[in-house]
């Protein structure tokens, strides 16, 4: 008796602007926050290499962000490279060695995972344009004997992120930070009893994106439930009643 009422399917699949492929949840949340801040609204997440392979099969999207602590991202990176995608590797506790290995595997960029949102957006745009993105400090890599380890690339050029990663402050906890206007908009719809899919329809983004925004909202408001988030936002004067 399954399927009495077919859920209305989304009219067409929207092109996502990037795929975040990692099984490392804290890493994922940190990067998502920055991607959302940088205006990447329509994101997909792959938690397993197989899921990434599926996504790359059905999507024309080629920007893939992998990362975490090397060599964890290797499996994702391999899938992305094999599918002809453009992978950007963001590494926790990055070492030049690991960045070199990632590039050798076919990554189009290797950066520290704590780069600011604006730099991340710049890096993604550069990768999308076919450039290779490196840390300023990785210049040594290019000049070193390791140079021959890099896979040849069509455009053999180097784009540096707007801000050198060394100057990046440590990532600060989200707790207590004010909501963004998008987050307020979503929370207001939550308060009206709208489902995640309903919110996604209203805002023309994917349901996944709504979930990511809500995760950030819950984190900022220190809330475990939707009701707590709404109550806390009202208490802070972030949401009208």
């Amino acid at each position, binding site marked *: 008796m399954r399927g009495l009422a077919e859920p209305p399917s989304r009219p067409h699949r929207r092109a996502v602007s990037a795929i975040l492929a990692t099984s490392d949840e804290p890493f994922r949340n940190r990067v998502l926050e920055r991607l959302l801040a940088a205006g990447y609204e329509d994101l997909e997440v792959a938690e397993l290499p197989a899921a990434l392979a599926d996504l790359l099969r059905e999507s024309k999207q080629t920007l893939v962000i992998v990362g975490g602590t090397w060599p964890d991202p290797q499996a994702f990176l391999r899938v992305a490279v094999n599918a002809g995608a453009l992978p950007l590797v963001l590494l926790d506790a990055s070492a030049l060695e690991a960045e070199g290995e990632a590039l050798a595997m076919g990554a189009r960029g290797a950066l520290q995972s704590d780069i600011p949102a604006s730099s991340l957006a710049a890096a993604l745009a550069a990768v999308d344009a076919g450039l290779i993105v490196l840390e300023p400090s990785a210049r040594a890599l290019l000049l070193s004997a390791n140079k021959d380890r890099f896979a040849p690339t069509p455009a053999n050029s180097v784009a540096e992120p707007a801000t050198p990663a060394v100057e990046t402050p440590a990532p600060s906890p989200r707790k207590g930070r004010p909501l963004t206007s998008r987050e307020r908009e979503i929370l207001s719809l939550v308060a009206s009893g709208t489902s995640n899919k309903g919110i996604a329809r209203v805002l023309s983004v994917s349901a996944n994106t709504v979930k990511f925004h809500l995760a950030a909202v819950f984190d900022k408001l220190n809330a475990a439930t939707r009701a707590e988030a709404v*109550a806390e936002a009202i208490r802070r004067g972030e949401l*009208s*009643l």
Partner: protein
Amino acid sequence: MAANSLLKQYSDERAALVQNAAPKAAAIILGRRRVLSGIRWRDDLIITAAEAIGGAEHVDIRLDTDELEANVVATDLTTDIAILRVGSSAVAPSGATPSAAAPSAPAPLLRVGETIAVVGHTLRGPTAIWGTVQLAGPAWSSRRGGKIDQRLELDVGFDPSFEGAAVIDTSGNIVAMAVPGPYHRVLGIPTATIETVVAKVDQFGHLPKPYLGIRLQPLWLDDDTRSKLGRKARGIAAVGGIDAGSPAEQAHIELGDLLLTLDGQPAESVNDMARRIASAIPGQTIVLEVLRGGKPLTINVQIGERPRH
């Protein structure tokens, strides 16, 4: 032991009560790893716990052995009540069509110490646990402003699969829905409260969320100001924002207004205001007394409905 020993009779009676209630238990399937319980309230209406439902729009449910799809019609975070409607009532399981509404006459208030059973459903079939009404208090207001007809805390061996399950008394009546509360307590949301929410959904087709359109900021009063205003509470809520086109804007509430009273009762804090607005009904007119430019002013506002898009 004699076949008709008291112990056997006791056990048989308990099992019979649970079996009678079991057809009203539904399993709500949220994902591979999360199944909670629900109560078949009417032919096509299933009640379950709103928090667990979260932002879902459709869920699969299991009733008896049938797997059905249900739409999430309403979630009320203030009472933790979610209302689901099975895809189409016309094709509801034919074999199991229980009588109209699950609970009929207004359920009598539960007493502390009463024996109750919580009857749920997992993918492997109906489940039941017996327990005691650990606390039976008066009506209360949830922290989110939900008016709940009786404070019920249950002493039962609860696990997450019982969230949203039916609580039955020893007459077999459904008296509440079991939900997890703070500090690992198990709360009962009384039948009367569920009926109120169901009635609103019957009336409006959805659950309208009361809305004024003001954002509030707490201010702390010093003792002088407090005594000048004749207020007990140290805090006072100040209007820090007004939504365009909202009831508040139409009623000419202004930025910086300090909220003194709501319907004659002192507005103690932002939380207090939020609770009281949350329990209002759209269309209802409330009377706000505000302090503007040092002078008290009375404003009537008709509560609206929070925009859904």
